[in-house]
Every structure is written in structure tokens, then in C-alpha cells.
């Protein structure tokens, strides 16, 4: 084996992400304890965790695979509608089967999109995929808005409460920790995937798709797989969202929420996973605070738009980019600390 040649300073700099991850996890674990007296803040925090799933889902697509998806909310929303309908029409809302159902819905739907958009004979351009997903989300929103069976423009309200055994979950610390557990699992699985040899292929693909093809990788298959996995996470998020809000409407599967997911990930820092979570938390918290400020709330969407523009232009690596080096963001997949790394 070769000798370690990298300087210690780089070694330190390359381990910022785990520090951030541990800090965020610690914050997430204690948050409800600090909010015992303010249930509405626990609701907000739970919302943030749920939307983080959507943001991670987008980050897997764009940050790791170069798929500009403006349709993540579609998988999110459709899964939410499905569990809401299962609750309404079948009177069933047990977590052990509705959450997997929602994940399957997200997976299947995104796989269909992938098959259509990504698995053609010719490799699609980023713009083609972006427009394809955007169109899908838009069409779905219009379709649902006019469909009486799913509540048309008013959406589905009074979604049956999520059940685990005989326990019905309303908003509160219980729901929060359930979502947190699912988020940690999803995050762990995503992290495992993007740090695996599979992830190395994604990393290579982001830099030079053509080169990877000449190595013998069917890159569209890799993209389709990651897109489907992202759809699965979005589906899980959508189901939790519907159960938590007690409501799901056409706005939850359209381009609006899809774009918000883009914003979360880009603002926090795409291609890091944790950036997506941080972006969601920041944007949702600021939105929550500003929503009560009548003077500002009108302009909030506009401000958000400018923030995104500023991020894209001046700090494409997002908030996390202030702390994490480019080297660490891309990461190493073997070599140097192979021996120390468990996976």
C-alpha cells in the first residue's frame, strides 16, 4: 500500500460532513424536548422532517445523478393521495402496510417516468428530463384538480389518522419521533447508496457521462434506479405528510412543491444529503416566522425566488458549501482510508 501523502489539514477538512450530520441528528433528537409547551412548533418540526424526505429525494436525483427533476412532488403527492384514499374508502391506515404501499407507489410511478424519460435508445438531455418531469407534475395537478373522486380542487381532508397497532398518531412528539426514525433510516440508506461503489459510478457520471459509457456502464440504468429509489423516498414522505397534515390537495403533487424541493436542496447544498435536510429546515423555519409578518409575507415567495437565484449564482454549493470542501463533497470511494471505513 502506498504511503499517506495527504496533509493532516486536508484530512480534517474532509471530515466535516459527519460532524454536521451528528450535530443535526443531536438537534433533531432534542428538539421536541425543548418544545413541550409549544405543540405548534413540534408540528412545524415534524413537517420539516417530512419535507426533508422530499428534499433528499430531489438531491439524490440532481445532486448525485444529474437528473433535474421537477416532478419529485408528483411521487410525494400521489402516494399521499393513495394513503388518504385507502383511509377513506377502506378505513385502513395501519403503518405497517400503508407506508410500504406509499413507498411502492412512489417507486413504481417514478420507475414509469424513468422508463419513459431515461431509458430511451438515446441519452436524454437535462432539459428534456426537466421538462418531462415538470409536465408530468403539472398534468397530474390539473388532472387531480378536476377529479371529483379525489376531492377535485379541494383535495382530501380528514385523512384517517395513522395507526400503529391500536395507537393512533396525531401531531405531537410521538409522530415526530416516528418520522425521525424513518428519516434516519432513509437517510442512512441513501448515504450507504451514494457512498457505495454504485455511488462511485454516480460520481463519475456527474463529471463525464460519455466516458462512463465507454467504460461499459449503462448509465441510463443507473439513473433510472436512483430515480426510482428517490421516488420511493418521496412516496414515503407523501404518505407521512398526508397523515400528519390530515390533508392532501392538488398543490401537493404539482410543480409548486416540486420547485420548493429544488429550493430546499440547492439552498442547503446539493450533493451532500445533509444539505437537503438543512435547507428544508432553514427555509421552512424562516417561512413560518415570516408568515406572521404581514408586511413581508406577501413578498416571501419573491424573496425566496431571489434567494435561490443568489445561491445558484454566488454559492452553488449552498449553505453547507461554507463548511464542506469540494473534495469532501465528492468524497472518496476507496484507497486511503479504505481500511478504516466499514462500508
Amino acid at each position: 500500500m502506498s504511503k499517506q501523502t495527504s496533509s493532516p489539514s486536508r484530512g480534517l477538512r474532509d471530515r466535516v460532513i459527519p460532524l454536521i450530520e451528528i450535530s443535526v441528528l443531536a438537534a433533531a433528537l432534542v428538539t421536541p424536548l425543548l418544545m413541550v409547551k409549544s405543540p405548534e412548533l413540534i408540528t412545524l418540526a415534524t413537517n420539516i422532517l417530512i419535507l426533508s424526505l422530499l428534499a433528499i429525494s430531489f438531491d439524490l436525483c440532481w445532486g448525485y445523478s444529474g437528473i433535474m427533476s421537477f416532478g419529485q412532488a408528483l411521487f410525494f403527492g400521489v402516494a399521499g393521495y393513495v394513503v388518504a384514499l385507502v383511509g377513506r374508502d377502506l378505513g385502513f391506515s395501519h403503518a405497517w402496510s400503508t407506508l410500504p404501499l406509499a413507498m411502492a407507489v412512489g417507486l413504481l410511478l417514478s420507475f414509469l417516468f424513468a422508463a419513459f424519460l431515461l431509458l430511451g435508445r438515446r441519452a436524454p438531455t437535462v432539459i428534456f428530463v426537466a421538462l418531462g418531469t415538470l409536465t408530468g407534475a403539472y398534468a397530474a395537478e390539473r388532472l387531480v384538480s378536476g377529479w371529483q373522486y379525489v376531492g377535485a380542487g379541494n383535495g382530501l381532508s380528514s385523512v384517517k389518522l395513522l395507526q400503529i397497532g391500536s395507537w393512533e398518531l396525531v401531531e405531537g412528539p410521538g409522530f415526530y419521533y416516528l418520522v425521525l426514525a424513518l428519516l434516519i433510516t432513509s437517510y442512512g440508506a441513501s448515504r450507504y447508496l451514494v457512498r457505495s461503489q454504485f455511488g462511485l459510478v454516480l460520481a463519475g457520471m456527474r463529471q463525464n457521462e460519455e466516458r462512463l459509457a465507454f467504460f461499459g456502464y449503462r448509465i441510463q440504468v443507473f439513473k433510472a434506479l436512483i430515480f426510482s429509489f428517490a421516488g420511493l423516498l418521496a412516496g414515503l414522505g407523501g404518505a407521512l405528510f398526508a397523515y400528519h397534515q390530515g390533508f392532501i390537495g392538488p398543490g401537493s403533487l404539482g410543480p409548486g412543491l416540486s420547485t420548493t424541493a429544488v429550493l430546499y436542496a440547492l439552498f442547503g447544498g446539493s450533493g451532500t444529503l445533509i444539505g437537503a435536510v438543512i435547507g428544508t429546515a432553514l427555509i421552512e423555519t424562516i417561512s413560518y416566522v415570516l408568515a406572521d409578518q404581514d408586511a413581508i409575507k406577501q413578498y416571501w415567495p419573491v424573496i425566496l425566488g431571489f434567494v435561490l437565484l443568489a445561491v445558484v449564482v454566488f454559492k452553488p454549493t449552498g449553505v453547507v458549501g461554507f463548511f464542506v470542501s469540494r473534495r469532501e463533497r465528492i468524497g472518496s470511494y476507496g484507497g486511503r482510508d479504505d481500511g478504516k471505513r466499514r462500508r
Partner: protein
Amino acid sequence: MSADLLVVHDVHKRFGTLQALDGVDVTVHAGTFHGLIGPNGSGKSTLLKAIAGAHLPSAGTVSFAGRDITHATPYERARLGLSLKFQITAVLNDLSVYDNVLLALQAGESIWSLVRSRTRRALRDEVMHALERFRLADRADKLAGELSHGEQQWLEIAMALAPRPKLLLLDEPTGGMSPEERRVTGELLAPIKDSCALVIVEHDLDFIRDICDVLTVLDQGKVLDTGTVDQIQRSERVQQVYTTRV
């Protein structure tokens, strides 16, 4: 060992009004280093790309190891044992040198195995071996983008050879190298002849002469002459083209 590994038969390629390749026939035997030379615009890079699958020929066939690969995808060609190094270095700058080679080496594995990182450790020796062979072992942790130009070329050759191809296509391997680096490149390539044939496009005739067994000379999309290095050096037709046009 003189089986026909690659047979290019009557290949045409037209870009608009430009006839880049006009009925080219080339046969590459296993275990030989085959140089493609010719003046600028003679079609050698286009021919290489047609073999690699970057361009599809307008007419004619390309077969490799007995299979017609004229219209095969890059992925299919790679799986058959055809490897390629681009003219412009295409190492993955943001990945470590080690990861570049690992990426090339693991290309043959199933996706499930990649997801589970099953060969991450098993491939380590092979990666390091490939790096050592191209004098890059002590650069393993550097980003590929931090290497010198010559080192990047070697890395790319190392990557191209990593999946143990039967035929390696090299487009301008010594472009931008110092004379010393060219010499080393020649040395580094020589030992692979046992396992792998080469098709090289190269301007540096000295380099070509040093390492190639067979040369094909192209001019205006047609084959001017094919033969051993000695034969070509004596070929009057070739002399004529090179003295009048180059």
C-alpha cells in the same frame, strides 16, 4: 496469434458534404500494435471513433472478435473487450486517482454488487497494481485533476487497460507530453502486447515507429497504404503525401 481481432470493411462516413471516410478497410490482428497515421483531416480520428462507437458509419461494417459491432452501443463494445482512450484527456478530475481506476475496473460488475460494494476491497490490489504499472501509485489519493498532463495521460491509459480489454484504442496518447514522457509512455505500453492489441492515432512519427508493428496510412478518407513500419517508410506513395502536404 494472428487471428483477425478487428475487421473494418468498406466503412464510409459522411458529415454533410464532407466525405470523412471513403471505403476504408483495416484489419487489426491480436497482439499487434497498429498505428493509424496521415495528415490532418485524413480521417484517422474519425475511423477511430467509428470503431469505438462514438460515430456510427454511414456505410460499411466493423466487426470485433467475430461479432458485427457496427451499430453496437459503447456499453456493448466495452463488454466485448474494446477499450478506448480519448484524444482529450477524460480522466474524472474531481475523483481521486485511485477512484478513477476503481471506476474503470468495476465496470463489469452487476449493479447489485456495486450497491453492496462487494468488490471495494477485493479490487484494491488490482487498482494499486495498475497504478504502480503506470508510476502513479504514490499519487493514488490525489485528485486526478491535480496530476500533470502526462500523468493524466498515463492514468487514462491505466484506466483504459484496467478492464483487461482485447483491443485498446488510443487517440493521440502522447499529445502535449515532453520527450521524456513520450519515452516513458512507450516503455509503459510495451508490456501489454501479450494481452492486448492497440490501435493508435498519433502525430509523433518517432513514437509510432518505436512501438508499432503495423501502420495504416490514411489520406482524404482513403487507405493509402498498409504494412510494417519498414514497408511504410519505404512506400513512395506515403513519402509523396508526407512531403507535399505535411
